[in-house]
């Protein structure tokens, strides 16, 4: 079923857990600015979790995935970090255990920064097993293909 909010949409298959919310960026608690965040995983998403999978990645088994799509503020649009236009197409070679925000043995991660429709995003993905990254990336590709991002300041 297609879930859509804050200019983000995802049609994840059954068995995936998805949440689209607005959250204060890390270190900005008390700040009135919030950022749309999309979390998707093949495990139950805890009510309390970090933007980049804190509280979730420890639950991943070798066959699980975690996806975080975080929209940066308008100030990030046009910066060098977000200069890539259009959403990324992750492949198995993009993932590495040393790209994890929080290192967990056996897991693998990847992060991309991009701009689409005048909005700056970071995509962070954790695979439950680096050894099974080809299989897991195939599943990831299927889900990311359903990602719908509304251009402009839709949030």
């Amino acid at each position, binding site marked *: *079923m297609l*879930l*859509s*909010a804050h200019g983000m949409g995802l049609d*994840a298959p*059954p*068995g*995936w*857990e*998805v*949440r*689209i*919310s*607005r959250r204060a960026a890390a270190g900005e608690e008390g700040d009135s600015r919030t950022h749309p965040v999309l979390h998707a*995983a*093949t*495990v*139950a998403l805890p*009510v*309390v979790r970090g933007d980049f999978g804190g509280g979730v990645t420890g*639950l991943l088994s070798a066959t699980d995935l975690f996806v975080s799509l975080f929209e940066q503020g308008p100030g990030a649009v046009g910066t060098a970090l977000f200069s890539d236009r259009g959403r990324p197409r992750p492949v198995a070679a993009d993932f590495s255990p040393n790209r994890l925000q929080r290192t967990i043995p056996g897991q693998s991660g990847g992060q991309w920064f991009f701009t689409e429709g005048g909005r700056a995003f970071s995509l962070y993905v954790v695979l439950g097993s680096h050894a099974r990254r080809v299989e897991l990336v195939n599943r990831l590709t299927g889900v990311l293909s359903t990602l719908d991002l509304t251009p402009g300041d839709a949030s």
Partner: protein
Amino acid sequence: MTALVVGLTVAVALLGVLVAGLLRSHAEILRALHELGAGREDTTPGSAGGPVDLPFEVGRGVLSAAGGGAGVTGTAAPDVVGTTPSGDTVQVSVTAGGGATLVAFLSSGCLTCHGFWERFAASTPELPPATRLVVVTQGPERESASAVQQLAGSDLLVVMSTATWEAYEVPGSPYFVLVDAATGRVAGEGSATGWDQVQRLVGEAAGDLALARTSHAPHDHSRGHSHDRDAGDGPHREARADRELLAAGIAPGHPSLLLTADEVVDLDRRDGSPQPGGHAGAGAPGRD
């Protein structure tokens, strides 16, 4: 005078017909309300002083391929899709995590539900391992999101979704549905007035499911266990019986297996000794 009496009689008769019609209409309204489930909650008169001891109606049991049981028990369980009281859009997978999901259908208005809200807000509810709780209220078009948020606290997963109520055919609140993640099907459902009832029966349902999986699992003799002792019902007991019969020289097709109990006793008497496969003491010398 006669005209007055006739007139009064006609008036009384008309009033009688009117009263009979009203009574019949009233009875039909009561019957319709009963069929709609009015009075399920403790909103019935005289119940405001405390919880009502309603019977627990969880449809327990092991899943069957053909379904069975009341309501949606045995059917495929849909994911919970809706919004949180704080406005997040969510899809909660009832099969994620590989354990079980207890879906609690509550509302902000029902008195019985308040006991559950208070319990959930006070502390994390105790459930069997790998079982999580998801509270589902009706959608924001029927429930006040702020009222639900106030009741829920911060650590409770609450989804507002009228579609989920309809998908699970929820007759009223409070109502509980236990989903087995391994099969993706509803393992049990029902209403309750207290968390202790729910907790106990969820525990039993989880035990039933675990037992069903164990008994249907392939019987593995390579794990170091032996059949030297009776392990109760099931494959161990059957294996023990087969082993003892074979040790006594009784294989499939043995003539003694075709005898009735009386014929076995007669055979024992003639031989004067216990026969393999017969009652151990029935044919023993001096005991008949």
